[in-house]
């Protein structure tokens, strides 16, 4: 029931936003749905848009289950893209399979290091990952900005701060003109996260750490090791997302590589309640929504910011639905209404 209420609440917020923008709701919604899933091309675009968000969100979900908040998705995505673009441009003559794999791996490592730093700072120095991941986002942004304005800048790029485009041999294929290979990686990653959380002893330790840190410590679980592990893993998944977007969609790295995927990923993981399946489903839905809005923008002038408002509203409704006090409030109103004073 809570989920249904959250959905209705979110739709209501969306309706208000559309009306505030002076748009006719029914036809706009039609345009968004058409833009999201109306044609094979639209489906491909929706999947492409969903992949980096969902990969980053799977990482956020793992960290969330351990009681940690990875707000550093954007920085980790930048580092992943940086790793991937570096390998792709440095070794263009490698055989495609080798080059694609190497770029993806180095990108993943870039994210892993960036997330791992926050994990180590938390585990060894007790620094809140909420603060450090945000700082690392800005640091990553300025490092990338420096590189694409300087050493990595495309000399033939008519002055824009972007790298050269990667060669075809580093680009990810699209299966049957419909399924981007990133979408396959996304499914595999979701499955791996599910195995990790539900079928391994490490998963039990991660979830135990999240629900009761002191009980886990008594059970002999190393908090430091779990913290570094999950933050590194979260970073690695976001980094993979960055690499996939670079090699499968954008092909070059610039200052505006991520349109806030990192924060959207946090919302996606929270709406998916930190489960692999919930996060995957929410991630694909949010990707489709973003893609639908972006393509409707041409015809219906729907600002992309609406997607951000909607996911934020959805998170709020989900918290409210889960909150103990909300249940109390509903019960109190109910008893007052029905006149049953004895609870």
């Amino acid at each position, binding site marked *: 029931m809570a989920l249904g209420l959250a959905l209705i609440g979110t739709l209501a917020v969306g309706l208000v*936003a559309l009306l*505030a*923008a*002076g748009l006719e709701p029914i036809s706009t919604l039609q345009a968004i749905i058409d833009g999201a899933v109306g044609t094979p091309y639209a489906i491909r675009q929706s999947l492409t848009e969903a992949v980096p968000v969902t990969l980053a969100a799977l990482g956020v979900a793992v960290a969330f289950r351990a009681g940690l*908040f990875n*707000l550093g998705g954007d920085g980790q995505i930048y580092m992943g893209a940086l790793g991937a673009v570096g390998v792709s441009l440095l070794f263009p003559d490698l055989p495609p399979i080798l080059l694609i794999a190497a770029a993806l791996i180095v990108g993943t490592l870039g994210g892993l290091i960036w997330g791992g730093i926050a994990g180590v*700072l938390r585990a060894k*120095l*007790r*620094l*809140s990952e*909420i*603060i*450090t991941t*945000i*700082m*690392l*986002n*800005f*640091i990553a*942004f*300025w*490092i990338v*900005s*420096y590189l694409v*304005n*300087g050493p990595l800048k495309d000399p033939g790029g008519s002055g824009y701060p972007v790298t050269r485009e990667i060669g075809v041999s580093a680009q990810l294929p699209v299966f049957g003109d419909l399924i981007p290979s990133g979408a396959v990686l996304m499914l595999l990653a979701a499955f791996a996260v599910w195995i990790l959380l539900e079928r391994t002893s490490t998963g039990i330790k991660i979830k135990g750490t999240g629900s009761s840190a002191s009980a886990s410590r008594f059970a002999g679980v190393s908090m430091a090791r779990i913290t570094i592990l999950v933050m590194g893993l979260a970073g690695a998944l976001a980094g993979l997302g960055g690499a996939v977007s670079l090699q499968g969609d954008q092909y070059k790295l610039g200052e505006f590589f991520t349109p*806030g995927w990192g*924060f*959207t990923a*946090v*919302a996606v993981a*929270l709406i998916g309640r930190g489960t692999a399946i919930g996060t995957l489903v929410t991630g694909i839905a949010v990707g489709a929504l973003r893609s639908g809005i972006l393509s409707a923008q041409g015809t219906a002038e729907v*600002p*992309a*910011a*609406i*997607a*951000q*408002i*909607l*996911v*934020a*509203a959805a*998170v*709020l409704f989900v*918290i*409210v639905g*889960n*909150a*103990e*006090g*909300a249940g*109390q*409030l509903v019960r109190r109103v109910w008893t007052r209404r029905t006149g049953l004073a004895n609870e």
Partner: protein
Amino acid sequence: MNDLFHIITSATLYAAAIRLALPIFLAALGETFAERSGLVNVGLEGMMLMGAFGAVLGSDISGSAVIGVLVGLLFALFVAVIQGFVSINLGGDQIVCGIALNIGALGVTAFLVRAIWAGGNAPQVEGFSAFHFPILADAPFLGVAIFQQSVFVYVALLLALIGWWGLMRTSWGLRLRGCGEDPLACESFGIPVKRLRWQATLICGLCAGLGGVFLALGQLLTFSDGMSGGRGFIALAVVIVARWSPLLAIPSALLFGAVEAFALRVQSSSINVPPELLLALPYVATIVVYAIVVGRSNPPAALGRTYIRQ
């Protein structure tokens, strides 16, 4: 070397440090109240952003910067009210709520900018110019560094003193701090935990909002997407560095303002360092300073825990 010496000894560096520290300080001051009452408010960034947006909107429509301040504060209060309702009344997770509000504020402001102003860009608006103290403003060095600041600086100083007095020297402040240490014990003594936490949340919204208002009307004189630039999160670190003290928040925030000011001065000097790397400096400094100080910090005992009266 000579250039560096020149930068460090120039009064304009210190003037800029104060100016840049101000929004961070105001947000940290608000957060100090919230955290002392037991609430973690991660939504500072969103409050600042909404404050900045409201200020530009109000100033643009009315042509008066004062109206801009009021509208900005109202926008920030709106965020605080949601935060308060979800975390205090409903007992929702405080951190998740704050994160959602940050994302929401980014979305709402970006949406409104495009819905209100043609071309999707906020205009230049009426702001506040510097206030020159008679006589003192002409003093060597200190005149430029301290006595030619925006009126916000002096207001903030006053707020710091009032905040310190209210929190540390009144029975209201004692009770508020009690809520942050042991809300159940406070409740059993008849202290209205909910009401005090609501007051702390609204104070937090007003202070962080004022920080955003100053960013808009005291510095940029316009609004751009995400212009709070992580200052809400730096303020979270400042609160810890200042050990939850309204007065210690002044030097802590100044430290971060000084780093940013230094980076900007070096950028405009003849010293050859890539500007982008200088702009990353405040964020690196935040982690470093936070790491040095955190081991000795002692947060309120009930900080971040959901408290719902049974």
